[in-house]
């Protein structure tokens, strides 16, 4: 079984090398692991830092947004004939140990899409993030009819079926909810596993800005009314 770990990155030169070094070299019941960084038009040294880690790099000439970068990663993985794709944020917010837990339901054929949820287990999460994520989950449920305890999580795993059938259109943050909608539309099994969230000053600065929630919600609505 082949796993591709997609790491979307935009101006992450400060931490990306450490994040890439920490990614697993082997996983149970997995024959090969390919890591691909999608450099989403970074203007700093993200590309050079990723090169030092000896991983595959696909470089967007222009910044197109997180959703676009993930979609490029999925396309790349399909070309490599991957069986499972894992998306992993480049800002150091995830613990690479969680990847094994994340792919387990797919290996056991119990799920097509697995979401790593930061909110299934009690842990220290800043209040503003808790509130915004709760709001995003509610909006996803009301607008798309899918409930997920962490609809905005960056740590996900896609089965081959999910890779081929999920076709999201959004280029930016709202793609996270669209993935869930697509999974529901294609009658896929969605599973959630608890993951660890590492909130550092850097990851909080780099992650979704609190004020971004409004335009993301507006685009959500426009997509529905379009």
């Amino acid at each position, binding site marked *: 079984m082949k796993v591709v770990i997609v790491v979307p990155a935009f101006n992450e030169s400060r931490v990306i090398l450490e994040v890439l070094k920490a990614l697993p070299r082997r996983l149970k019941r997995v024959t*090969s692991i390919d890591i691909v960084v999608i450099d989403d038009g970074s203007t700093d040294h993200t590309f050079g830092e990723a090169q030092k880690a000896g991983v595959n790099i696909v470089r967007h000439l222009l910044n197109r947004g997180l959703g676009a970068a993930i979609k490029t990663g999925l396309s790349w993985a399909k070309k490599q004939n991957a069986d499972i794709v894992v998306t992993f944020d480049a800002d150091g917010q995830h613990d690479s140990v969680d990847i094994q837990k994340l792919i387990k339901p797919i290996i056991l054929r119990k799920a097509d899409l697995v979401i790593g949820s930061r909110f299934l287990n009690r842990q220290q999460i800043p209040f503003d993030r808790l509130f915004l994520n709760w709001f995003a989950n509610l909006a996803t449920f009301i607008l798309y009819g899918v409930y997920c305890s962490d609809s905005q999580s960056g740590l996900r795993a896609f089965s081959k079926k999910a890779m081929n059938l999920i076709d999201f259109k959004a280029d930016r943050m709202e793609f996270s909810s669209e993935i869930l909608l697509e999974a529901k539309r294609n009658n896929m099994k969605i599973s959630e596993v608890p993951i660890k969230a590492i909130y550092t000053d850097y990851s909080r600065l780099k992650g979704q800005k609190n004020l971004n929630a409004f335009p993301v919600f507006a685009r959500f609505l426009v997509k529905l009314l379009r």
Partner: protein
Amino acid sequence: MLTTIQILLLIFILFSVSRVILRVKEKVISTQAGFFWVLIWVAAIIGVVLPGTTTRLASYFGVGRGVDVIVYLSLALLFYLVFRIYVMIEDIRREITFLIRQLALNSSTSPVKSPRKRSKK
């Protein structure tokens, strides 16, 4: 006798019509789109030269003044055109992303194989 505002509006409308015709000739916009815009400007000329027509139109729609019906119709048209432009921009954004993706994937056709790749025993 035309008033000053009527003359100014007519000059502006004729200028706008000339721009539409030029863009059609340059094939920047299609003949159908050019026809649509000429139609809009001709309606504007009628409204400016024969203000009585807008009053009749207003009474037909049940609106008090001729100017009001023009404002209402123009607003509706403007909102619709803004929506069309919004959709068009979204489409262009999507097309740019598609191009960027294809370019990125093509330039990584022979990536350096990850040294992490290992086989399970």
